[in-house]
């Protein structure tokens, strides 16, 4: 695996991060100048991947809980400031969407969104988010490099990846056939990666609304008594305004 100075330089330009010193693999060399991944080699896309997820993966590579001939020595050699650089690199917003969406495979779509009760596989999207957009310690799958997704699931299946303390991922991967894995990898690769969807709109600012000016509201002069208690703070008395027990009158 060669480290190309040229690639490193252009990565530095694009992501404005300091370069790791010589001898440590530069992220961009494999993962692309903008962290877009490398479909030809199956190197995963990192751009916009949640920080918490990446931190956990680097720790797992360093500790050998996740097996990978390239990443294990890289992760072990990373010093704290280099780790921050690497994370900044991955935080680069994704620049362009992946290739044209492929025709959705119904089997893969069903596994991704609904699951399979006979094999006790729940929907991938339960944790990886609607359309596989990821969150926190859970990586996004949408727009990920297909070959990488397939190899990641294969790693879960054979136990080469041991980074899920819940044991959910190994159990799910073991229940998937090789054909399911290929179909799921293609399915998610064809979805737009987070932040690259058509339109890429930012949420509209919340309007100020018609909130009454301070001092102008019909607030009660004294706060009513609101005892606390059950269901995390519900009242514990039946005599309040909500009380509506049996009544001594004919309906």
């Amino acid at each position, binding site marked *: 695996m060669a480290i190309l100075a040229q690639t490193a330089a252009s990565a530095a330009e694009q992501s404005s991060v300091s370069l790791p010193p010589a001898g440590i693999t530069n992220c961009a060399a494999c993962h692309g100048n903008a962290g877009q991944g490398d479909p030809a080699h199956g190197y995963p896309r990192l751009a916009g991947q949640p920080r918490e997820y990446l931190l956990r993966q680097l720790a797992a590579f360093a500790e050998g809980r996740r097996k990978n001939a390239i990443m294990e020595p890289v992760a072990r050699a990373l010093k704290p400031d280099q780790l921050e650089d690497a994370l900044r690199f991955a935080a680069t917003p994704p620049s362009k969407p992946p290739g044209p969406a492929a025709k959705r495979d119904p089997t893969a779509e069903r596994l991704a969104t609904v699951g399979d009760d006979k094999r006790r596989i729940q929907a991938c999207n339960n944790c990886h988010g609607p359309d596989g957009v990821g969150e926190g310690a859970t990586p996004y799958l949408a727009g990920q490099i297909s070959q990488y997704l397939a190899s990641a699931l294969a790693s879960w299946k054979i136990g080469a990846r041991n980074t899920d303390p819940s044991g959910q991922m190994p159990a799910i991967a073991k229940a998937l056939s090789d054909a399911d894995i290929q179909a799921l990898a293609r399915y998610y690769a064809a979805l737009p990666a987070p932040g690259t969807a058509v339109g890429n709109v930012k949420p509209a600012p919340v309007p100020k609304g018609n909130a009454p000016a301070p001092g102008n509201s019909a607030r009660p002069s004294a706060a009513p008594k609101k005892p606390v208690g059950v269901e995390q703070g519900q009242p514990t008395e*039946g005599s309040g305004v909500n009380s509506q027990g049996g009544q001594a009158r004919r309906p």
Partner: protein
Amino acid sequence: MATRLPEVDAVLLGVGLVGTMLGRELTRAGLKVVGLERGDPRSTVPDFQSPQMHDELRYSIHQGLMQDSARETVTFRNRDSETALPVRRFASFLPGTGVGGAAVHWNGQTYRFQDSDFRMRSRVLERYGAKIMGEDLRVQDWGVTAADLEPHYDRFEYLLGTSGRAGNIGGAKQPGGNPFEDSRSRDYPTPPMKEPYGSALFRRAAESLGYHPFPQPSSNLSQPYTNPEGMELKTCMFCGFCERFACEHYAKSSPQTILLPKLLGDKRFTLRTRCQVLRINLDSGRKQATGVTYVDGAGREFEQPARLVIVGMFALNNVRMLLLSGIGIAYDPQTEKGVVGRNYAYQTVSGAQVFFDESVNINPYMRSGASGTVIADFVSDNFDHGPLGFVGGAFIGEAMSHGRPIEFHPVPPGTPPWGLEWKRAVARHYNHTSSLTVHGSSAAVRQNHLDLDPTYKDAWGLPLLRMTFDFPDNDVRMSAYLTQKAQDIARAMIGGTAGRQVAAAPRKGPYTITQYQTTHNTGGTIMGADRSSSVVNPYLQSWDVHNVFVIGASNFPQNASYNPTGTVGALAYRAAEAIVQRYLKSPGPLVQA
């Protein structure tokens, strides 16, 4: 005119937790079994999947998994002098419906009652004398002991895969477990759940006051588990959508995850959904049941003859079914004659809230249904009631189950109930508030009872169940004392730090059905060794009609300090064993009255 179907060996009324367990045991014994479920069929995939299952409005506020009160409800009053009115919208308690029953949307808190609970009357009389009972208390012994139930508790916990830490294995105390529990034969099948931060703060505070905190036993699992039925469960993901919701991850122990697929795969079993049982039919001597009459989803009436009838519906519906069928004599609170409907009890729940400053992050959304840390120092008779003047107790714990946006808005006392100040207070306190639960027992009293309403009827024209209930003075006194104990722990949690405060309120009457408290409705078909004061014998067999078994929290003579499901499961396995090993060989009363 009902269509008469071919006779089967056994019919199940309700296919929830009890129905599934009994169905499995009876088909395994070779019986041909029909399960009648009033609700819909449902399974983890596709029915419980995200993002739909995380719809708080649909499932929690609109009660998506609950009994439809427009078709079937209860009427309610606080006392006999009032006229009961129908509950148009369930709120105080939420009866479930559908295949898997309430064990689909439960939290998974899986406790064992103590021997002192099963012998409550004897023990109270021995230790304190009759005076503490007052005039109205009707607490009774169950007719079983903790030792009788131990093998069945054990089997049930291993079916569920319950995650916990033992406190007493074979008489040897175990560090970190519940030191008050009765001897268990072995440890829990899986280790305890991870301890949330708020629970850890509770644990330290409780220890500092000399109490004995332990991890709450949870049937949302801490790790993957394969039960003796060969069913594989997965690990809870702490999603915060547990009670009132179904589990998307195969991590909550529900009929669907622990047993139902095995039962449905058995040719001897037939499941019929959308079937509303109207009554259990009796022979001319009213000594034996001949089967049931039900209406299916298309409105057609059927008679399903059966040689054995298992009543395993929600506790309140168990009571109603016996009353509608004329099995046993209805209880009259004036004369105290009759037994069906007596000793209706509930749960006396209160709490304390701990408002931290913004340096303490509780992350309430990251919770599991039954994660948390509790103490049993005030459970049952683990403390001296002599000077206190009440019976019963409570577990106290930090066992929050969620921080869902619609339902969880912690604000300190004095905050306006709406408007800008309220919104600011919610934003300030949402992530910095911990809630302690005081989960109190409920004593049976003469006046609290269930019977058929004289006026109101359900969608099939049958009388509704009428609930007459208010908190007994005994329980109000208990709640006052134990809520103070919770408040003391809460104070220890905040220490002397400025910007923190505690709010607590004991349970007080009158009981209202319009605010959620708990769905632990118990009693009405109570068990006991004496047929003059119970509906079923210690094997849950009707004293009056020997081929009818009634199983559920309706068997509890009074409610104990802990959540009921563990005890319901143990009682169900014990009844199933008695049916398979004894009753089927020689049908007739298992206990001579």
